[in-house]
Structure formats: structure tokens, C-alpha cells
């Protein structure tokens, strides 16, 4: 589904990614771990197409298509979804208006009929129930005045409505207490339709006990220093990133 080959990228002229290789197949969950500043979020942003993140070398294909030839909105229409570490507050723009605009763009590009406000209201209500969000929240301005937990839950709601095939979750566990974490993780699991793949970007092991990854990759200084299974994450939790770094150097 996603093939990342020798990816280099810089932000403000500073090289952050220094040759990332990653292959994600259908129905797979990959965890990308790493210390602060290792390039985890940069990788997520580069894949989603955030302006200011410049790819200097390498390639990424999504279902065989050159991802970098597509603007951010086209990537989303093809089924790529980024859950933001810090979801943006947009005063004056109502959640349901915003999400209907996105939903209809996806339908349009899939050649499907668009939903009018009434039908979409039914959809968003049913999805809000799935992610255990108060339907009244969807009438509020996007993320405005939401708590950290509400913002993350809102990302899950958007995922529930847009039904992406590749989900990149950038530190979806940050700022969540253990109960909120469990609920968000459950939402993510319940929303996994067959064929859905997930890239979990995280600093800590704790969310991985809810979302069992098939593969764990450790990103150190812009490169994947080590890959393995679930056991690798546990080992990092016990021994820290220094251990991997030492191993990578050896």
C-alpha cells in the first residue's frame, strides 16, 4: 500500500529525515517510535503533504502512485488520513460544516453522490455515538475550546466519518489520561475495516498495549535504526532509546 524509499526531507533548511525506508501492506499496523527530534512527526507531515516540509530525495508511492505528485487534499481523497498531534482550532467554522465539506469531496472524487446537510447530520450523529462523543460537540467550532482529550476524540470522529485506508496517527496518545487513551484506542480498533492500515507514531509504549502493532520501527536521527515486532517496543520501554542508538552505531 505504502512504499517509502530512501526518503530525505528538510524543514527550514535543516535536514530531518535522512534516508527512511518503510513498507506498509494492507491490514498492517506499524508503530514508529523514537526519541524527541528523531523525525517521527516530520515523517507524518511529509506523508500528509504539509507545506514547508521539503522532500530532497527519495520516493513514496501510495497504491503505486507517486504520493509527492499529489497535493494534500488529493492524498486525503485517496484514503490517507493524518491524525494531528496538535489538532488546529478554527474559530467560526463549525465541525459539521467542515467535516461535511471534506466528506463530500471524498465522495465526489470517488464518483459517489454527495450528502445534503440533513443526511450528513444523521451520519455524523451515528459516528459520534461510535466514538462516544456528545453530538452537540459537532455543532461547535472546530476544536475551539476543546480539551486535549476532546481534540483527540475529535480526530477519531473525523476518521470514523472519512473512513481512510491508511491512517497515520501522530502521537494520538499524548495528552490523554488512561481512560481517554483506552477509549480512543478502542475507537481506532473498532474503525478498522478490512484492508485498513495504520502507522502509529508514538514516543511511548503504552498505547501499543491497546493497539497491537505488527511491526515496530525505531527512528533515530532521521533513519530507521531498528525494526522488529511487538517485543522491540517492550525492550525500548525497559532499556530506553540509548540502547537502540548504541546498537545502531555498533
Amino acid at each position, binding site marked *: 500500500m505504502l512504499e517509502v524509499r530512501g526518503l530525505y526531507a528538510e524543514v527550514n533548511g535543516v535536514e530531518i529525515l535522512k534516508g527512511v525506508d518503510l513498507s506498509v501492506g494492507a491490514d498492517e499496523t506499524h508503530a514508529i517510535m523514537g526519541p524527541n527530534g528523531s523525525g517521527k512527526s516530520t515523517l507524518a507531515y511529509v506523508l500528509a503533504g*504539509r507545506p514547508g516540509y521539503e522532500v530532497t530525495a527519495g520516493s513514496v508511492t501510495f497504491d503505486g502512485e507517486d504520493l509527492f505528485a499529489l*497535493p494534500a487534499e488529493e492524498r486525503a481523497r485517496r484514503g490517507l488520513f493524518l491524525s494531528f498531534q496538535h489538532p488546529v482550532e478554527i474559530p467560526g467554522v463549525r465541525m459539521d460544516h467542515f467535516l461535511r465539506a471534506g466528506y463530500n469531496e471524498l465522495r465526489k472524487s470517488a464518483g459517489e453522490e454527495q450528502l445534503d446537510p440533513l443526511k450528513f447530520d444523521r451520519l455524523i450523529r451515528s459516528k459520534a455515538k461510535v466514538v462516544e462523543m456528545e453530538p452537540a460537540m459537532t455543532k461547535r467550532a*472546530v476544536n475551539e475550546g476543546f480539551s486535549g482529550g476532546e481534540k483527540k476524540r475529535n480526530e477519531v470522529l473525523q476518521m470514523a466519518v472519512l473512513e481512510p485506508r491508511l491512517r497515520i496517527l501522530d502521537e494520538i496518545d499524548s495528552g490523554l489520561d488512561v481512560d481517554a487513551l483506552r477509549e480512543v484506542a478502542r475507537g481506532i480498533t473498532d474503525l478498522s475495516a478490512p484492508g485498513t492500515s495504520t502507522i502509529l507514531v508514538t514516543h511511548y509504549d503504552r498505547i501499543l498495549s491497546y493497539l497491537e502493532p505488527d511491526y515496530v520501527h525505531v527512528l533515530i536521527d532521521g533513519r530507521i535504526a531498528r525494526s522488529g515486532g511487538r517485543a522491540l517496543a517492550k525492550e525500548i520501554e525497559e532499556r530506553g532509546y540509548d540502547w537502540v542508538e548504541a546498537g545502531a552505531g555498533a
Partner: protein
Amino acid sequence: MTQHATAIESWSEQFHRFERNGAETGPAWLRDVRRSAFSDFERLGFPTARKGNEPWKYTNVRPIAESSFALAEYAQAASAGVDLHAYELPCPRVHQLVFVDGHYEPGLSTEPVSEAGLHSDVLARRGDGPVVGRLADAIEYRVPLVREHLGRLAPASGNGFTALNTAFLRDGAFVQIPEGTFVPEPIYLLFISTGARTVVTHPRVLIAAGADSSATVLQSFHSLDGGTYLTNALTEVVTGPGASLRLCTLQRESNDAFHIATTRMEQARDSRIASVVVDLGGRLVRRETATLLGASGASVNLCGLYHGAGERHVDNQTFVDHAAPGASSNEIYKGILDGSSHGVFSGGVLVRPDSQHTDAHQVNKNLLLSSDAEVDTQPKLEIYADDVTCTHGAAVGQLDADALFYLKSRGIGEDVARNLLMHGFVSEVLDAIEDGAVRQHVEEAVSGCLGGSG
């Protein structure tokens, strides 16, 4: 003044012709008021951006001073072709007055007010509906409020434009909400320019809201068909104790038109005015909105939205006079400036020495969508009392890049995303319009202007 000598001469000829034509009747006092106003104009001329004339620093009215405008003749034909459909409010009942090129149009207005309706003894009764009628009728039937307030709140001697408006005062709209009356339907004053070139109109409005009355008044200025004309509007508003008045102004003049508008309000104890002004048209727009909070408990909410496109110049000047203790004011003005447009906002707040416990807040935010667009914004706070809460803030920026990316990452294309953000930016102002039908009407006009839907 000498630089505009010829122009003033042409106004002078016009004034004398206007007088010779009997100015369509009117009592002697009104003739005196007009004459005095015209001599004010001769003395003042048009405002200039000269040193020491701070309020006109950014707005050069020379294009107006150097043009010669003629009063529009009454032409039945012009009105006959007016299709009001596009201007209709989305509600079943409305008190509507329509003026075409400055002339009252009975065929398009919903309520010709009866003579009885204008008699003062009738007006004094509680619980009657509003009086929405021609100012000319109110003058003719000697409605005491007219003598009392006309030209008092906005003296002709204020500047050249208010002087001209009063000098050519003949008709306009008169709105009176009797004491204790709640008017559920919007009162709609519609001023249409047919687009005849170099025509001038001086729309005049007097609104008197009695004690504990409540009403919504929408003033709307539209152009049928382009044209370089001048609208020189003047509105006076007075509220009784405890009155609640919601005022909205929608300005969609031609892109070549000049629009000068002066609104002066005076508020009694515990009265509340919520004003929303929306400027979407015009080549040169100058809008002054001022209120006198003359007694304790009075409050005013001033909101504004201006959209600059092409070479539009749009200047909003607000002034809140806190002349009594315990009054409050809140201002939110927002501008979206594109093309090589120029926005100006100046927010004056005066807190007089005895006006303790004043609560005054002011915000002006601007979005610059093009590198050629510019804005000048300045708060002008004069505070002479010590126990007050006053805040002000101004911001000038572009569309939030992070928000734009957030929207795109959900599949929303550039144009729709920008449009959503612009609508989000202006929603705070539009949400301040309390009447649902008026809000919907104005929202549609704004959507039509910003493009797309919101």
C-alpha cells in the same frame, strides 16, 4: 476650501434650484434648517486630509469634491423596472420602505402610513405597532419628535457631508417604536440606486425607540446597475429608557460608487443598541458610527464587517462617548482586504471623568489576502475616569496556514478551504445579527461576495 471653489459653486446652484422648486413644500422651520445647513457647507467645504484633521487622515474625498453630482429626478419609469426579488427578506412579514434614487416608492413599500398613524396623540398610546413612514409625512403632520431630534443628534455643522445632507433634506424614513412596544417583524429601509451616473442622493433616517420598546431595523443600500454616483446617508437614532434596538446596515453599492454614511445615536438609561454594519460594495466608503451613552446602564454593541476588493477604499470610524457611569460598550470590526483595497478602522472611546464603572472593549481584526491590500487601524482611547475596564486590540494577518493545511488534510481543496476560513473569520460579526431573517439575508450577501457557500 478654495481648491474646491468651483465644486462648491455647482452645489450652490443646485441648492438654489432645489429651494426654488419649493423643495416640495415643507414648513418654514425646515427651510431655515436647510439654509443654515447650506451655509455650513459653504463654510466647511469637503473634509480634507490636511494636518490637524485626524479623522480624515486616510480618506481623500477629492474625487467627490471634484465631481459634480445632480439630484436625481423622480422617474416613475426607473422604479417600474425594479425587481425587488433579490432584496426580499426571508420572512413572511416585514415593514418595508423603499426609496429609488432617493425618492419614496409607494408601489414597492409595504406600508404607507396613514395620517392618523402619525398623529402624536395616537403615538403616545402604549402597545401600538411601529410607525414606519416617510419623513416628509412626519414633518407635514408635525410629529413632535421630528422637531425635537432632527439635526440635533447629527448637527449639519459636523462636516461638509452632514451639512449637505441636511441642506437637501426633503424626505427619508421615519421610524418610531411606541413605548412598551415589541415589534417582531424586521423594519426594512431599502435604498436603491438605479445606476444613473453622477447622481447624488442624501438618504435621511430618524429612528426613535420609546421606553422599553424593542425592534430590529435593517438599512440596505443597493445598486441596480453600476454607475459613479454618490450616496450621502445620515441616520439619527434616539432610544428611551430600557429600549432595545437592533440596527443592521448592508451596503452593496456599485463598485464605482461613493458611499458616505453618518450614524449618530443617543441612548437613555438601561437602553441597549446592537449595531452591525456590513460593507460589501462601493469605490470609496466612509462610515461613521457614533453613540452617546448618556445615562447609566446604557450599553452598545458595535459590530462591523468590511470587504475590500479591487481598488475599494473603506473607512470605518466609530466613536463611543461614555458620558455616564456604569455604561458598557463592546466593539468588533473585521475586515477582509483583497486586490489593492485599503481598509481603515479608527475606534474612538471617550470615558468622561464621572463615568466610573465603565466597561469598554474594542477589537479590530483584518485579513489581508493580497500583498497589495493594506489596512490602517488605530484605537483612540481617552479615559478620564479611574475605576473602569477598557480593553482594545487590533490584528492584521493572513489566513492561518495551519488551519488551511488541516482542512486540506481532510480532502478539502484550496478554494473551499479558504472560503471556509473566511466565513469562519466573519461569522463572529454576522452572528451578532439577532433577527434570523435579517441574518440570513446578510449572510447570503456576504457569501455572494466572498464566493462559495459557508
